[in-house]
């Protein structure tokens, strides 16, 4: 396996978050009854003509600027011709020779913390096709054209990725970016964000690419990873047993976790691309591009760099906290109520307790049951040593389920930390007196029993003893042969 190098390129289809379709006035909302969002243009009636949705173009330009690409001053729509029932015109309007966005790049972070740049060959606008329906139809196929004409941005990467993990990291980065830019809702279950993966292998050290297979329509990060892993193993096995990889389109079956051949290169359509004479070339001036640039938000990498710089976070933490605009905003709101030196504490809580509670109850961060001000209130009690970190977790759970502020819960449950040395000393003395055997063993050299005594004291105080104070005092009391 290690003799082979994996080469992956992704074609990501991001559905643009416009209200109406790219060439007609029909709505794009998901889940409507079949064919209720298809007008005469979507149905390709005789005589109708496409009219380009300017919002879709703006969104594509926004993406281009965000990945530092060249935004073409002049781009052209072309027809991709093939017959299929979900393609009413018999051609898809796409961009071929002159896409709106070309030559950009994105940085991804690898597991070892290294940063890798993935090239973006191009991003072009096109219309989505409809859907074939088979369920509940005997001897027939139904066609739903609600999705036909939905605007897509197809983002084509360079073959720069060298593992399934890198491919997933890149796809996640694009996902983060399009959601930051508010040009795609990123909903993978509804198909708003999906990809085709071009996968090949070559002997390590060889410059020439191996023959690639294209795996179509992967709509989850996990499927991307598994499909690539399967496909790489298949190709390596094939080559090592003296076979040849054929250029083909394959489908990933997530139930069986395998890829299957769909059609070979020989069976591939000749799409007979040519410029669509119904649509004029799209031309921009600098003023338009500047106006779109002015709408760009702080981008994920910029936010991560700022978090690392201003809050002293690690690159990893900064990356996680900037993975979505909402998460970043939540974190910043929490930090705002604390001294900046406690940003790391805030980061740990947002990435830890808060994230797991959100995941567990599948709640979006915007609808979190503990809002940033409430979390700040809790963290303040840790900072001023009113409660320990451990108790704080209990308080957090109570806040999550009861919706009350931290202080109220701490008071009501009497969770305030015991810092009175006399009180702690009394408990320690009682514990030592009650456990003479353990005391003797400890003093005879069984160091591990220190933890036993800590546990007993904590149990007796309901976990409220200040841990640092307790450790120090317990050590002094136990004394013995422990220099």
């Amino acid at each position, binding site marked *: 396996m290690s003799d082979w190098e994996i080469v992956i390129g992704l074609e990501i289809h991001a559905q643009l978050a416009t209200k109406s379709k790219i060439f007609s006035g029909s709505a794009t909302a998901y889940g409507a009854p079949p064919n209720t969002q298809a007008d005469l243009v979507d149905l390709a009636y005789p005589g109708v003509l496409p009219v380009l949705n300017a919002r879709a173009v703006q969104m594509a330009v926004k993406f281009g600027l965000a990945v530092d690409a060249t935004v073409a001053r002049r781009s052209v729509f072309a027809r991709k011709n093939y017959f299929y029932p979900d393609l009413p015109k018999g051609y898809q309007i796409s961009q071929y020779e002159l896409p709106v966005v070309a030559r950009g790049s994105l940085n991804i972070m690898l597991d070892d913390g290294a940063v890798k740049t993935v090239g973006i060959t191009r991003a072009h606008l096109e219309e989505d096709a409809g859907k074939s329906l088979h369920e509940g139809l005997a001897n027939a196929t139904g066609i739903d054209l609600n999705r036909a004409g939905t605007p897509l941005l197809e983002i084509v990467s360079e073959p720069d990725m060298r593992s399934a993990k890198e491919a997933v990291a890149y796809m996640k980065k694009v996902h983060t970016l399009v959601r930051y830019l508010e040009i795609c809702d990123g909903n993978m279950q509804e198909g708003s964000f999906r990809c085709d993966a071009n996968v090949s292998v070559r002997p390590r050290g060889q410059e020439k690419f191996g023959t690639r297979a294209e795996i179509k329509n992967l709509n989850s990060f996990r499927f991307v990873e598994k499909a690539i892993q399967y496909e790489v193993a298949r190709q390596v096995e094939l080559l090592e047993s003296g076979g040849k990889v054929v250029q083909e389109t394959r489908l990933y079956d997530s139930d069986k976790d395998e890829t299957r051949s769909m059609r070979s290169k020989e069976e591939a359509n000749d799409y007979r691309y040519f410029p669509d*004479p119904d649509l004029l070339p799209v031309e921009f001036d600098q003023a338009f591009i500047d106006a779109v640039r002015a709408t760009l938000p702080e981008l994920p990498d910029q936010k991560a760099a700022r978090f690392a710089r201003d809050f002293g976070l690690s690159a990893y933490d900064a990356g996680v906290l900037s993975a979505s605009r909402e998460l970043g905003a939540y974190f910043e709101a929490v930090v705002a109520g604390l001294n900046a030196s406690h940003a790391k504490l805030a980061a740990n809580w947002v990435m830890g307790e808060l994230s797991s509670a959100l995941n567990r109850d599948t709640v979006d961060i915007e609808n979190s049951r503990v809002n940033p001000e409430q979390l700040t209130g809790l963290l303040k009690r840790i900072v001023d040593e009113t409660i320990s970190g451990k108790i704080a977790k209990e308080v957090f759970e109570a806040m999550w389920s009861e919706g009350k502020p931290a202080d109220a819960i701490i008071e009501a449950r009497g969770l305030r930390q015991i810092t009175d040395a006399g009180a702690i000393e009394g408990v320690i003395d009682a514990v030592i007196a009650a456990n003479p055997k353990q005391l003797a063993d400890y003093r005879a050299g069984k160091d591990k029993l220190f933890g036993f005594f800590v546990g007993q004291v904590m149990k007796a105080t309901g976990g409220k003893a200040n841990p640092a104070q307790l450790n120090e005092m317990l050590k002094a009391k136990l004394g013995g042969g422990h220099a």
Partner: protein
Amino acid sequence: MLHNLFIGELAERLSRREISSVELTRHFLSRIERLNPALNAFITLTGDQALGSAAAADARLGRGERGPLLGIPLIHKDIFCTDGVKTTCGSRMLDNFIAPYDATVVTRLKGAGTVMLGKSNMDEFAMGSSNETSYYGPVKNPWDTAKVPGGSSGGSAAATAARLAPLATGTDTGGSIRQPAALTGVTGLKPTYGRVSRYGMIAFASSLDQAGVFARSAGDAAAALQVMAGFDPRDSTSVDVPVPDYSKTLSQPLKGMKIGLLREFFADLEPRNAALLEDALSIFTGLGAETREVSLPHLPLSVPTYYVVAPAECSSNLSRFDGVRYGYRCENPKDLMDLYKRSRGEGFGAEVKRRIMTGTYVLSAGYFDAYYLKAQKARRLITDDFRSAFEKVDLVIGPTTPTPAFDIGAKMNDPVLMYLNDIYTIGANLAGLPGVSVPCGFVDGLPMGLQLIGPHFAEAKLLNAAHQYQQATDWHTHAPRGYES
């Protein structure tokens, strides 16, 4: 007789309430009933609907409303979608197709108060120069019913010549208005590409198709264009430039106008055709215009260029006719492929299939550069030739067709010979220019036309020159025998 009057006079009488639109409509409907069987100019007649529209126009007139087309009957080429009315495009493929909406051209003319009498016969999907490719049979030329009326808008041309309506719409992709206008002795105007909306006009070759009009005079054509022209947000290729008042400039003297004689057009002209053009030129110079020779060196490339570009676009445009959502569907399809193949195989006629195959070929991998790309380059050269010509002259003049109307059946088995019919008209389509054909005399008792071509959006100038010519001549007033009274 009412049917010999020009639109201006009809509108006069309507506005003075000397006749009603209903009377006028009945008059034309009865002529159609009597005369059309020999011509086959219609695919669908909409008599009842027409009387309703006429009554509505009369009501508007009764309220004091006036308009140059209010209450005027007309015919729409069956390529324009008409809400609730069968729209076939001359094809079996759409024999059962009731359009669910109006084309922009139809909407505008309806709004102006015109009365649709019916939908005219045409070559299938506008592919043809003789109206013989129609699923509904050939249209006969009223000047001689053994002859073709030209195509593809043959029904509109024949009906206008036979005085079955004062006005008819048409479309011109390679000469489909100007050539039949010439062969039937009427005035045919093809506006600048983008001047009139293509929305609702069933596409043949999108970069060449342009809606226009047949009338019996340049003045009548101007009145119709006034209503049809203008930007349409539903057609991205329609152009947002102001529409001038075409009637206002009709009577401007031609003094000082520079008319270019296209050397390439006059080179191999048949002597009798040449003589008619000589006569016309002396009329123009008599009206004060100056003539000079201009050359369009790349014009001989126009026929081969056209027969790459137009089939390429049509091969894609006609993909939507797949038997799935509307139109013809074969009986008992075995599977999807069978449905596609038989619906299209049975629904389309021979000429349409020939062009789909040609177009598919020239767009195919390995041939695209040699054909499609090269044709686009030739198109650019032809356009540039016209542009330089219009730096020296206001308009260019030439014949509309090489010969008068030919016999039905004469060229059906030789597509190349048939395609050469469009040799003088195709250039204007490739360059997107406006052109008008006006009657200029007779050869063997059959009408001939001269063609004026102008720069983009120079329709006013074209109509002005054509109108002045018609003021000085009476060719446009001749009616075919049997259709005068």
